[in-house]
């Protein structure tokens, strides 16, 4: 198992009150497997991903009966040990390249920096590695992009550069948190296809986090649907059209569709019973 998480809980305390944002999430991912985590804003999907990298704010309280990455217990890792895993063995692609790339460094410098953080080699080797990585993410003119600053490239190009940076240390797992939400639909599909191909070629595992259920279903093997910190269901992506949970059905149903005009869109009826924790 590449990722094995049992009963993950993330809580925040303040003013004497305790709020559990993630309540009992179970995830498992085999090598080369692709898992989608889908949910609305506030469902805890990003928190779950960040907990895996231990990138949560210090006031967050994480607990889990098991939280392992490739046999390594993440709960007991120190920050120093985490730094080797984070970036090195787990890559993390964030939503908006505008904010996640350093605006005052060229793209080449940033990729080379991430390569040198996890490999040993000269500056020249790092630069060559960066060029090679930009080629791998299908940038047409990699030599030019290498010396460009993030504001000089388009959003899709920036996201490709971001992916190149994450691939530099050759990770085993790629976590992509809404990697395409800030991009146009046509670029969205391109980036996801690229991620898909790279994951395939490099035998990586992929965790794709998104609010877009149909989109995720095209690129993942399994989809885990979250609502208010709880997992509603986990379902094979191919069976999504037959999903039975009313929340999943509701999410699929309430989107306007080009090929089926409707006078009014069905509105999701939320049921408090979905959030009840069934005692084991």
């Amino acid at each position, binding site marked *: 198992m590449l990722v094995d998480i049992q009963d993950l809980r993330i809580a925040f305390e303040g003013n004497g009150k305790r709020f559990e944002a993630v309540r009992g999430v179970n995830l498992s991912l085999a090598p080369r497997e692709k898992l989608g985590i889908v949910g*609305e*804003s506030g469902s805890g999907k990003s928190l779950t991903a960040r907990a895996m990298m231990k990138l949560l704010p210090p006031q967050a309280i994480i607990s889990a009966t098991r939280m392992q990455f490739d046999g390594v217990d993440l709960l007991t890792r120190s920050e120093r040990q985490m730094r080797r895993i984070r970036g090195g063995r787990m890559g993390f692609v964030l939503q908006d390249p505008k904010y996640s790339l350093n605006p005052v460094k060229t793209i080449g410098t940033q990729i080379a920096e991430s390569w040198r953080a996890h490999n040993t080699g000269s500056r020249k080797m790092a630069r060559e590695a960066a060029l090679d990585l930009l080629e791998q993410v299908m940038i047409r003119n990699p030599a030019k992009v290498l010396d460009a600053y993030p504001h000089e490239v388009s*959003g899709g190009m920036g996201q490709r550069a971001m992916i190149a940076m994450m691939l530099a240390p050759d990770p085993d797992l790629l976590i992509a948190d809404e990697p395409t939400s800030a991009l*146009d*639909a*046509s670029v969205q*599909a391109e980036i*996801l*296809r690229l991620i898909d191909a790279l994951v395939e070629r490099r035998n990586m595992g992929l965790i794709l986090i998104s*609010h*877009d*259920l*149909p*989109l995720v*279903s*095209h*690129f993942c093997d399994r989809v885990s649907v979250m609502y208010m910190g709880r997992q509603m269901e986990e379902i094979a992506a*191919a069976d*999504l*059209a037959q999903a039975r949970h009313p929340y999943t059905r*509701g*999410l*699929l149903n*309430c*989107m*306007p*569709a*080009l*090929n089926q*005009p*409707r*006078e*009014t*869109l*069905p*509105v*999701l009826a939320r049921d408090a019973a979905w959030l009840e924790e069934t005692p084991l």
Partner: protein
Amino acid sequence: MNTMIDVAGLRIAFGASEVVKGVDFNVARGACFGIVGESGSGKSTVLRALAGLNRDWSGRIAFEGTPVGLKRSGAFYTKVQMVFQDPFGSLHPAQTIDRILSEFLLVNRTGDIDGRVNRALAEVALPPSVRFRFPHQLSGGQRQRVAIARALIAEPEVLLLDEPTSALDVSVQAEVLNLLADLRRRLGLTYVMVSHNLAVIAHLCEHMGVMQHGEMVEQLSTRTLREGGATHPHTRDLAALSLSLETVDAPAV
């Protein structure tokens, strides 16, 4: 046809770069016209010029047959109001909903502020308790309802909608789209809606214009689009992409 909005030869340039290169369209009273395109196609720029938020345009923009100039009068804004994409960015963070909604009434020295604020909240199906809260205390969908209520408080005839649901979850998007459709029916409003999402445009609008690189490459009715009658390759691309993304069982393009 009773034309509400008439745009002809609209050109918008920022310095040397022309971002809208001659756009013509008109919208009938009570109709909903959608403008769809990718980022950078100039769709929002057109909308901002209609709203008078952009002064670098040339050409003709007329509401109810009366051409408007670069500067708009106060009376103009009682007729035309705009709703922006991100309700977080468009509502004043340090003002209560009550203050946000009464701004227009105070500026225009309208009476019965209390009644009109309450009516506007009821119009967008928000509970009266929302009135004395701050924007950060509301959810994204509620904030967008407030933004719509603020536009409605002027009792306008035209609503300009710039990606009104793009920042929202799909379930909340459905609620806001239903609200917009309902308001248009009840109040007889005319909409111009800009979105990158073809399915959203097709849901709400009967007619649409497709923009690419600053030009409106095709105008067609939603019905024609659904029947596969789009002629321009860009429209066809957008439609094919939209269809492939909305199905859950078919593989991606």
